[in-house]
């Protein structure tokens, strides 16, 4: 692991520790959960260059599957978490297998259509999912693992610690995936699909695998989200949420997976502060999206990179 990775992980861990001092536990938890969802989208969007607008579907399938189990059975957390991850992973595999064979523009439209398929399926299946009211009465499990003593997750601080541990662990795994040979193949396919295939890599298989892994981690984020407010709202599956997740990856910076949690933080804090200003905050958010796309394509990480030389000069440390 390179030095910059270690520094990044250190900063991430530090931020997780400091966040509850600055924000409420629930806002900090939400921030981490969307950080994971955005990081889960990164292998597909950032590394693979596959602009999936179906990420909310994966997030939602995880949340609804895990949420339904928690609402109907008093199981240890392990089982809803695994079920959500597995369901989202399986769906992502099927979606990926069908989508990666299409060229860019059709790929985008297909992932979008899959997102809407899931949205309407959940919307229509009212008896199980609660339809447009969302899946209510989700109970946070009383135990994490079978045979272990219970823990009260309804205490905000306990829930935050749980979310922090799971999100940080998943982030380590995602970092490992991005740096793995799979990540290299995805990157190669992004730069030149024909050459990557000519060298002998099965790029469609690699891309489908990336989708599957993205689905697993999105699903985990979804299950955590279902626990956050004891309800799984249908808005979480809407295509706007897919757009939001893509925006988080972008505003953080497409060049690094560390941009994903930063992007999520920017998004959540922006949403929270804008919604205080005006009921129609998505309008302001839309204007910000437009502004970022036109003027700050490298995202926040690039902004940091642009500022660094200036800061050095200001402090006089950059005298060669």
């Amino acid at each position: 692991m390179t030095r910059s990775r270690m520094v990044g992980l250190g900063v991430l861990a530090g931020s997780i520790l400091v966040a509850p001092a600055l924000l409420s536990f629930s806002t900090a938890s939400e921030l981490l959960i969307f950080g994971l969802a955005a990081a889960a989208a990164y292998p597909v969007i950032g590394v693979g260059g596959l602009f999936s607008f179906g990420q909310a579907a994966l997030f939602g399938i995880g949340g609804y599957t895990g949420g339904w189990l928690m609402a109907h059975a008093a199981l240890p957390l392990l089982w809803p978490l695994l079920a959500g991850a597995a369901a989202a992973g399986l769906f992502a595999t099927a979606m990926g297998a069908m989508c990666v064979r299409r060229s860019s523009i059709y790929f985008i439209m297909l992932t979008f259509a899959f997102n809407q398929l899931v949205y309407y399926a959940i919307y229509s299946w009212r008896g199980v999912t609660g339809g447009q009211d969302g899946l209510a009465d989700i109970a946070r499990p009383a135990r994490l693992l079978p045979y272990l003593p219970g823990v009260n997750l309804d205490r905000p601080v306990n829930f935050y610690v749980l979310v922090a541990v799971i999100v940080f662990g998943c982030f380590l795994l995602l970092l490992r995936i991005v740096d793995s040979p799979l990540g290299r193949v995805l990157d190669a396919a992004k730069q030149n699909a024909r050459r990557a295939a000519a060298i002998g890599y099965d790029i469609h298989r690699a891309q489908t695998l990336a989708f599957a892994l993205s689905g697993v981690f999105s699903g985990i984020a979804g299950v955590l989200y279902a626990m956050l407010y004891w309800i799984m709202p249908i808005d979480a599956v809407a295509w706007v949420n897919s757009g939001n997740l893509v925006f988080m990856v972008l505003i953080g910076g497409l060049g690094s997976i560390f941009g994903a949690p930063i992007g999520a933080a920017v998004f959540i804090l922006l949403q929270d502060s804008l919604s205080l200003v005006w009921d129609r905050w998505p309008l302001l958010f839309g204007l910000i999206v437009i502004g970022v796309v036109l003027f700050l394509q490298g995202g926040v990480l690039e902004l940091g990179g642009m500022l660094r030389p200036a800061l050095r000069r200001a402090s006089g440390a950059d005298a060669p």
Partner: protein
Amino acid sequence: MITSALLGVQVANGLAVGALYALMAFGLSIIKGLLNVPNFAHGALFLVGAYVAWAVSGGSGSFWLGLLAAAAATALLGMAIERLLVRRLHRGAYLFQLLLLFGTALVMEQTVIAIWGGLGRSMSPPPWLTGAVDLGFSPFPRYLLFIVVAAAVVIAAVWALIERTWIGARIRAGIERPEMAQSLGIDVEALVTAAFALGAGLAGLAGALAAPLTGLSVTMGTDMLAIALVVVVLGGLGSIYGGVLAGLLVGVVQSLAALWVPQASTVVIYAAMILVLAVRPQGLLGER
């Protein structure tokens, strides 16, 4: 009990809804052809069209003026979006173009809510379009017939514009070989603006036509965008007209599905799309 009259009404309903899908998909295909990007703001333009038609026809008392205002307003909006925003990005920067259009869609949707409120509205068709025509085996509501005819006339007119005129020849050249067209002295940039305005105007018109049929709601744009994208994918790669056929087909299938599985009629469309793509990946009329 499903009678032939009920079946007939559902087919009529499906054709009308399908005609709207066809208008939307047609506009999307034209924009996609020249800009090579799916217009994520297409649903918001549909929404704006519906509300403008409702406001103008309510204010002026003229249904036609409402239709005209909707098409003109959205065409102007489309022109502005292309000129002021999309143009600033490099061609082929898909993700940025998509996010830009996503942001634009949010702004338009929220502006509609800010102006007209988040509640649903209803709009009635003009008196001469109420009631039904009897086709012998089943009645066909007049307004549904009007939608089908209006959409057919507009699509035929745009078809003639693209296939039979001097401008159309340039648009086709711009879609097939943009660099070659440019080097032959065709102003491709102006064509892109024109195509965006045309596509946006079709979306606005579809919204205006839909308003008396489905009523107005702030989510109508998102719902329509999703289906229109499916229709374009079903219609086929590189085929502007595949979407028209697919639109009618999807409308009728959805409408008939509502008879047997009323709650899941929208899900049926997406399932059908996945099925078709599994069997025929290039879409109905697609080449390659």
